[in-house]
């Protein structure tokens, strides 16, 4: 299995890289991967259906229990057939769809292949996190595919929306998965099935996981991204956004429902969301004029139905889910292909611009009618089998709270489904064509066989399995057993006798027919209803609102926090650095040390404070620099009294030098500083300064008070001992500098070197080099790099 996944990866990368050479033949190359997958699956099918899954494992990050465990069981077989089967057909269909070789075409084929690999990963993973990894990969590839037509702003917006919503759901889900994994001690679905974890935390985790599944499978209220994604080329929509990717959420629910359906609020949540989605999707689909959007909302509705079937956690109902997944893939992909054909040949998908097609279009029309009939749940179609089984399951085995409500929702939504299916067919036949629109359909060029054959094949399956459902018996039974080990699923049958389910089906069809016949009145009523609830934001508006909220928040927060003013930054920094640690230091200040050690200190300190005060108030630059110098010289004096002659000498000479440098620079600047609007008002500045002063005072006393608590000697005591005997120097300070702590000094002179180089480099930048002996660290302005410079305005 890894080899096959790798094949998808490699093939995808190769196709993207070799795009120019391949052109539209890229889709032929891309077909290799699903074909290989199908062949492999076929060889293993027998074993798998006998309940002997194929497993492979790869340890990625052992420390995090991140392993890629693949498990190919019968339910995975269903999904693989779907992913690779439809994938193969889509590749062929694309050859017909993309007639002109556009530059980005191969990229599309490559990313489609990568997507197929990721999707296979999702359905093959037994490890929850591995599943998540592939899950996110499908989001990313979907993002790239939706935005493939990147010059169209709508495509970009839709791509980002899809990424954002599914990404958000994915992250929430990740947290849920981790909680489940940690509570159970395993991330393997097959092991969870044996020993399900439970508890309040797990219940919360389940909600999180469900949110992820809902976003991915476009459940209301997270469904808005799916119709938006329809800007992608039709083959992409047919593949990702109807047949495969959107089923990932349903797939996950199907896998987890046997484990968790009876825990927490799982059932309540899944059933209410699923039912709501099913009805809302149907209503929206009924309102569309764009055939593709109609199908998209139809997909939303059907995904809701699948949630209802799988989410209950009852194997009889889940069995219907398996059938529905297959049936839906067959008819929905075919219908999308039909829309693509119409769009390609007529240039529009708007039913108001279609006025029916010529005779040569009959095969396409046949596909449309059969597939739509399947979607509507007309007997003898595959979709009927699925719906019938679902209804039957709910009637017979739905012994849980709210079962009746769900059943009613299913019936109502199925009527809507019938109605929008009919709308689709009528649209194809030109019933909605407006007279003032140009007739683009009657004379439209008929599609070639390669173009419609994939859809035709799917329509064939729709009828075949509709009439002979028992052909799929073994597959469906195996898949149900894989989900619910030990269950005994009922065989599929076309005629189950007169029962409640059949009655409900009849009601559905009857209702659908009524809705279709009264379509003008229904449409008017729907419009009025929609106007009445206009105050409710749609999913798209809500999403736009979220984006706007993020944007406004980010601007506001940033404008406050990042105000660009150095004084304010400094104020915040010094206050934080002093006041926060003060909470610790202030606790341990009980006694004050001696007031003064040597009398002479009083004099020096007086000098220092006076000069410091002077330096901070005088308005004359050079005077202030000299005041600073005075502080420095007083410090040197203080050092002498404290037995630090080296330090005093250094301080003295450095003070001299830096005063000279100060004056050298300051002589250029205006003599005194004009009043410049301060960033912080003076009282605030005084308050900050005082707070810092007080904090430092407390720090100093608190730290020196703590010294007696430590038993060890000063680090320097050994230094004094060893200075002469070992290091052969009497001046301990110098010995420390050049020997004991020579490593510090090494760094220190390196700093000086850099400072020197930097000073010259900066001060002389842009200045004329007056003689060859001048320092060389100025800019080389006439050197190799200057002839081709970016226009400065662009920087």
């Amino acid at each position, binding site marked *: 299995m890894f080899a096959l996944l790798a094949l998808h990866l490699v093939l995808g990368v190769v196709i993207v890289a070799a795009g120019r050479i391949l052109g539209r033949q890229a889709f032929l190359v891309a077909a290799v991967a699903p074909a290989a997958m199908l062949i492999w699956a076929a060889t293993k099918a027998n074993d798998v259906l006998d309940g002997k899954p194929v497993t492979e494992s790869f340890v990625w990050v052992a420390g995090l229990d991140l392993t890629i465990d693949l498990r190919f069981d019968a339910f995975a077989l269903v999904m693989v057939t779907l992913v690779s089967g439809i994938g193969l057909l889509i590749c062929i269909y694309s050859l017909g769809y993309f007639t002109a070789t556009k530059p980005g075409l191969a990229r599309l084929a490559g990313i489609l292949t990568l997507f197929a690999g990721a999707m296979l990963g999702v359905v093959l993973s037994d490890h929850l996190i591995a599943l998540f990894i592939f899950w996110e990969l499908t989001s990313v590839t979907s993002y790239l595919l939706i935005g493939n037509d990147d010059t169209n702003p709508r495509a970009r*917006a839709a791509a980002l929306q899809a990424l954002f919503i599914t990404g958000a759901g994915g992250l929430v889900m990740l947290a849920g998965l981790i909680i489940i994994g940690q509570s159970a001690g395993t991330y393997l679905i097959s092991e969870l099935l044996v020993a399900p974890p439970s508890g309040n935390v797990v219940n919360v985790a389940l909600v999180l996981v469900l949110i992820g599944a809902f976003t991915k499978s476009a459940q209301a209220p997270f469904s808005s991204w799916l119709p938006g994604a329809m800007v992608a080329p039709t083959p992409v929509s047919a593949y990702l956004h109807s047949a495969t990717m959107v089923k990932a959420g349903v797939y996950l629910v199907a896998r987890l429902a046997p484990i968790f359906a009876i825990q927490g609020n799982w059932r309540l949540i899944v059933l209410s969301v699923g039912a709501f989605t099913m009805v809302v999707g149907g209503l929206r689909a009924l309102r569309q004029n764009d055939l593709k959007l109609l199908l998209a909302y139809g997909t939303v509705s059907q995904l809701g139905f699948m949630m209802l079937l799988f989410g209950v956690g009852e194997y009889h109902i889940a069995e219907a889910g398996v059938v529905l997944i297959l049936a839906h893939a067959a008819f929905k992909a075919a219908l999308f292909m039909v829309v693509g054909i119409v769009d390609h040949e007529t240039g529009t998908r708007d039913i108001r611009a279609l006025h029916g097609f010529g005779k040569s279009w009959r095969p396409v029309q046949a596909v449309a009618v059969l597939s739509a009939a399947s979607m509507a749940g007309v007997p003898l179609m595959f979709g009927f089998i699925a719906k019938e089984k679902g209804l039957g399951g709910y009637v017979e085995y739905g012994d849980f709270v709210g079962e009746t409500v769900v059943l009613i929702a299913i019936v109502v939504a199925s009527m809507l489904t019938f109605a929008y299916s009919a709308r689709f067919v009528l649209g194809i036949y030109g019933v909605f064509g407006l007279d003032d629109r140009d007739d683009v359909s009657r004379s439209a060029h008929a599609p070639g066989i390669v173009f419609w054959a994939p859809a035709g094949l799917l329509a064939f399956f729709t009828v075949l399995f509709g009439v002979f459902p028992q052909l799929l018996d073994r597959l469906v039974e195996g898949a149900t057993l894989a989900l619910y080990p030990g269950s005994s699923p009922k065989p599929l049958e076309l005629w189950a006798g007169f029962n409640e389910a059949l009655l409900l089906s009849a009601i559905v069809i009857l209702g659908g027919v009524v809705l279709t016949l009264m379509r003008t009145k229904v449409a008017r009523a729907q419009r009025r209803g929609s106007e009445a609830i206009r105050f409710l934001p749609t999913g798209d508006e809500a999403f736009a609102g979220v984006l706007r909220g993020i944007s406004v928040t980010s601007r506001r927060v940033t404008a406050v926090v990042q105000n660009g003013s150095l004084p304010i930054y400094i104020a915040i920094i010094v206050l934080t650095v002093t006041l926060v640690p003060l909470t610790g230091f202030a606790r341990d200040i009980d006694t004050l040390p001696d007031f003064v050690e040597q009398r002479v200190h009083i004099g020096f300190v007086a000098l*220092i404070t006076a000069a410091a005060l002077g330096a901070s108030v005088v308005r004359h630059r050079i005077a202030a620099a000299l005041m600073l110098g005075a502080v420095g010289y007083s410090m040197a004096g203080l050092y002498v009294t404290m037995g630090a002659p080296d330090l005093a000498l250094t301080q003295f000479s450095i003070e001299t030098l830096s005063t000279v440098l100060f004056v050298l620079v300051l002589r*250029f600047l205006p003599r005194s500083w004009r009043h410049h609007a*301060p960033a912080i008002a003076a009282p605030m500045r005084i308050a900050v300064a005082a707070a810092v002063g007080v904090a430092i005072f407390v720090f*100093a006393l608190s730290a020196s008070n703590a010294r007696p608590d430590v038993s060890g000697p000063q680090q320097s005591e050994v230094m004094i001992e060893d200075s002469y005997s070992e290091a052969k120097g009497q001046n301990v*300070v110098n010995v420390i500098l050049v020997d004991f702590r020579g490593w510090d000094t090494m760094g220190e002179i390196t700093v000086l070197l*850099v400072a020197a180089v930097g000073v010259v480099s900066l001060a002389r930048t842009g200045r004329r080099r007056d003689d060859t002996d001048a320092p060389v660290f100025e800019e080389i302005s006439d050197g190799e790099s200057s002839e081709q410079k970016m226009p400065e305005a662009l920087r």
Partner: protein
Amino acid sequence: MTVLLAFAAAFLFATGTWLLLQRRLSRILIGIGLVGHGSNILLLTSGGPSGVAPIIGSAPAVDFSDPLPQALALTSIVITFGVTAFLLALGYRSWRITHDDVVEDDVEDRFIARRRSEDHIVSDTEDAARAQAAEEDRL
């Protein structure tokens, strides 16, 4: 550490901070100088009571001032000197560009602060696209 020296250090920190909060690089530089002196007092007194210069043979070892903080303070003084020289070069460069040494606010930050009330985040075309999609998404 004595109260007097702690006070001296605190006072240097306070006046230095006051200067740091100004807009002129030259005043900020002087502020850094003062704060630096303050931290050196702390460093030097961290070795305990002061004594005589730590030169072997000149006095008994017990009378010595702690030499380690002296070495550390020396290192810090020299490094600060190097950095000060560099800051002076910055001030000099600033003078060459603006004939002053005011530390201006960041232009980009102010720009964003000014725009904060506007709410569109992506280009207008994408916004329009989104509005249309929202219309289709109605029931």
